[in-house]
């Protein structure tokens, strides 16, 4: 295909050609970045939690409050919940993964350190490891005689009584790698305030309840403390049991004490769904915007293509009369569109890179992976060709006899 005549035609339609190029370039730049943001959000939404999500239920009761029999009430609740058919494990916990409300603590490797090494979240609750279904990859679970009551620990901390504080801890693999890169974490010590904790086990993964910093999302530790805050996690035997068990558990808790307000009753899947709702909404919105952009751009190409075909009817007729085949005419418009799209894509890639740099600065997005450039280019070429096909076919259908009229 001869490109030179096309270029000389385009030179005479600078403005229109320029508009098509600009439109393609902007679309290319925005769609590349939008798709990238969508993929980031989807990755985030699929973030593994490390717990057996499809079998977990979370119930939170309000206002067990500062009553003295809180501990015995919790034991009664737990015993009752354990008896519901279909329940495999129960724990009274402090927080749940993706639960949004979290308790965190700075830790130090050495008490003389001025600033903390990292901040990790504190999971606790008797029987939490089998209930959550977290996978222990080294060491052992916390032992029953290592557990202390939470309010005792608070009192001990106030009295600076290091003896009555927890001494052992489980941490996640990511946290172990961050604290002691390349070393075995078991048996090592770190400090919360001035209290030493020895790592007795490492779990594969346990996501934090709230994530401010993606790089610290897996910094979790499990401390041997018995909780009586009215938040229960139930692990059911099978995912199908969940709805039935949840209803039975609520009925049972109500039977034990009808005056308690149920703050939360949800499956772990609900918790995840809620946690990522903003990301889901944003991804949905971006998908809509991308589609709309591509459609608008395609329609623009169709509109301008039709205009050019109408404008050049006579030229096409002359070419046909001089011996050009229908295929030649079709190819002419396709090549023209390909040239415009290529220039547009080239400009668009530079723009896409620029927008990505701006997003990296303002929205802490990572760098746009190189794969987006060829894929983006290919899809815009395809869209351009599809959009121009209609007008080009109409051009190819112009009969040579047009040339004989009105020249």
């Amino acid at each position: 295909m001869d490109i030179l005549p096309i270029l000389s035609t385009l030179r005479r339609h600078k403005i229109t050609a320029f508009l098509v190029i600009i439109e393609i370039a902007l679309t290319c730049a925005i769609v590349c970045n939008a798709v990238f943001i969508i993929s980031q959000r989807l990755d985030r939404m699929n973030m593994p939690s490390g717990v057996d999500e499809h079998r977990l239920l979370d119930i939170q009761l309000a206002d067990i409050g500062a009553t003295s029999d809180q501990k015995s009430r919790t034991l009664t609740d737990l015993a009752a919940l354990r008896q519901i058919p279909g329940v495999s494990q129960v724990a009274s916990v402090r927080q749940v993964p993706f639960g949004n409300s979290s308790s965190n603590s700075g830790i130090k490797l050495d008490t003389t350190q001025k600033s903390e090494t990292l901040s990790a979240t504190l999971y606790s609750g008797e029987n939490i490891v089998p209930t959550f279904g977290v996978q222990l990859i080294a060491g052992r679970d916390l032992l029953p005689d290592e557990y202390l009551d939470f309010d005792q620990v608070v009192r001990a901390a106030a009295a600076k009584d290091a003896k009555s504080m927890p001494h052992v801890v489980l941490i996640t693999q990511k946290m172990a790698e961050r604290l002691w890169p390349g070393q075995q974490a078991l048996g090592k010590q770190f400090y919360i305030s001035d209290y030493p904790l020895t790592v007795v086990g490492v779990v594969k993964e346990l996501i934090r309840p709230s994530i401010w910093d993606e790089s610290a999302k897996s910094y979790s530790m499990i401390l041997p403390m018995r909780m009586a805050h009215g938040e229960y996690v139930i692990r059911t035997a099978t995912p199908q049991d969940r709805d039935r068990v949840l209803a039975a558990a609520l009925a049972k808790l109500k039977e034990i004490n009808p005056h308690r307000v149920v703050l939360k009753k949800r499956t772990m899947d609900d918790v995840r769904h809620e946690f990522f709702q903003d990301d889901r909404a944003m991804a949905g919105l971006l998908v809509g915007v991308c589609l709309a952009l591509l459609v608008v751009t395609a329609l623009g190409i169709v509109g301008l293509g039709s205009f050019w075909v109408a404008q050049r009817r006579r030229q096409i007729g002359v070419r046909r009369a001089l011996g050009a085949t229908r295929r030649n005419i079709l190819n002419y418009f396709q090549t023209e569109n390909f040239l415009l799209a290529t220039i547009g894509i080239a400009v668009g890639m530079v723009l896409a890179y620029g927008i990505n740099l701006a997003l990296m600065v303002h929205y802490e997005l990572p760098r746009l992976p190189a794969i987006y450039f060829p894929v983006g280019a290919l899809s815009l070429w395809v869209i351009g060709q599809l959009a121009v096909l209609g007008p080009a076919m109409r051009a190819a259908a112009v009969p040579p006899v047009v040339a004989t009229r009105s020249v």
Partner: protein
Amino acid sequence: MFGYYLDLAFRSLARNRVLTSLMVLAIAVGIGASMTTLTVTHLLSGDPLPGRSQHIYYPQVDAIPKNTDDKEPVDKLDYQSAVDMWRAHRADRQALVVESQLKLSDPASGTPPVMSMMLSTTADFFPMFDVPFQYGGGWSAQEDESRARVAVITDDLNQKLFAGANSVGRTLRLRNTDVRIVGVLKPWRPSPQFYTVAGGRFSNGDTADFYGKPQDVITPFFTGLEINDGSFWQFTCWSLPERMGHLQNAPCVWLSLWVQIDSPAKVADYRRFVADYAAQQKAMGRFTHAGNTRMRSLMEWLDFNGVVPADVRLQTWLSFAFLAICLFNTVGLLLAKFLRRSGEIGVRRALGASRAAVFAQCMVESGVIGLVGGLFGLLLTLLGLWLIRQQPVAYADLARLDVPMFLLTFLASLVVSLLAGVLPAYRACRVAPAWQLKTL
């Protein structure tokens, strides 16, 4: 002449329906998307206290021992500092603010209790923030000190419990304490809920929760601390508190202090007062550092916290880029449309129409497309806002079109279409009449 151009415009638009609807659609979608996001940004970034915000300040001292003077002070105050500064009464008005969750019920009706949010504050809160009352009013400074068992409730709660009747004098049970209702607010929805904003810099742009509804019930500060003892949340602690949820004299920061200062000279005085207070505390050994006190005005504080969610800002940029693409698209299509009519334009020019007349005619046609596009754009904006109201975000109920944004929609679409029309109209009026007549 304008009427004639309008008539010509409608005829010309009706002649090529596909091209016309493409242009109208492009403008409508672009306007719809950008006006939706602009409305949300406008609602979220506005001044929650227009006319007063410049007199409202948020003093900060830093009680955390491990912090240093080169760091920003922590976002909230410890009990001692907050109460000391409040008691000094050095500003024109001052209010301590803390929120907590508790069980609330109406003892008279015997309906099951619900978990509600309680705001505990001091008497100046209402006049300082110009909070509107439906019935009754706030409480007095004496009642703050005497820990009076009184409360002000929101219109929402009044509707729920008392079907909107004047409930002043009735009793409400907060946890285990009965309080007397002394005031009922008119519907009040500050955006954002500025008086509890803190910690925005740690939220990574995820700040939608700053736009929640006001707390259901408002009690005097010290009364609230007594009623709901054990249920207060710290912003952060530097070591474990003795009793969870009881934070008076605990090594924790958890309170906000807002002050109103009416003259610039007094602002400087108050800044000095805050700095002196910190220095004095350092001298007494309670603070480890005193150099990083701050006193931001309300709008500065909101800005510092980056209250407009990052996603909303991103959406606004995106929608304007989208509008730009729609604009280029429309320019191209208008160009095609006008130049296709070169013959007709040639005849008009030959019959004596000036270039200006042809230009004006083309611009009227663009304007008509813009207004029709704006009308559809308005429908799309309403649809967009409706979609946002369906989202599970705290500011969902705020997403409504107000009059300025309504007018702006039409103005924007008119400007966009006229902008799109300039170049094509200019090209059209440069058409050489003789050349066109020859080829007719």
